[in-house]
């Protein structure tokens, strides 16, 4: 995890948050940050600390690698095409 603003970390935070039906504010409260920070994370403008990354993964019940990656995630269309 990179604790900086020039993050090269890719994430699927927005996808998981939408699926969980959580607002940024609700997610922020669960992990103890400012709602704006969730926005920065989702846009890839901030790389979280290891602690925050683990907290976010715990909220969605997934491993941290499912949420964050150094490589870009495949788009949903690519994933669907790969399963055919």
């Amino acid at each position: 995890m990179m604790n900086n603003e020039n993050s090269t970390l890719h994430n699927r935070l927005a996808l998981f948050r939408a699926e969980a039906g959580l607002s940024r504010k609700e997610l922020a409260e669960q992990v103890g940050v400012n709602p704006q920070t969730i926005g920065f994370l989702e846009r890839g403008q901030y790389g979280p600390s290891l602690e925050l990354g683990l907290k976010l993964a715990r909220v969605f019940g997934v491993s941290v690698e499912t949420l964050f990656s150094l490589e870009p995630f495949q788009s949903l269309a690519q994933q669907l095409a790969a399963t055919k």
Partner: protein
Amino acid sequence: MNPPLKLSLRTARILSLLVLGGIGIGYLGGAIFAAPDGDTPIGFVGLRLIGLFSAVALFVEGRGQLTQSSDAMLDERERALRDKSYVATHQIMVLAMFGFFMWSILAKFIDGWMPGQEQALDLLSGFAITSMALPGIILAWREQPQDDAE
């Protein structure tokens, strides 16, 4: 964090320009173009006041308050932002002091301008006000416009 004053990014940036312009020109220009009896021309006094009020507004505004907040009041991103603004402020102010130090050496050889006691105190005041406002100014210019409607 609940700041007493919350300004838009645009307003904060305009204020930051007023601080840098008002303080920079007001204090440096006022020191250089001081009357022989030591009085500062009224135009420069006006610029200083504009710079001072803008600096106070930026200081009490949200971004200025973020730079004054304790660790417990901020999350990790805000702490990183605050710390970076102080590092940048330190670098800028050290560079300014070093520049002035170099000028003080050079001025002896080329018979350049040097402030008198009163002007030196004025410049010190400008330096202090700039130091106070600079972390908030840096945050205002680093901040990116965002859509946090949700």
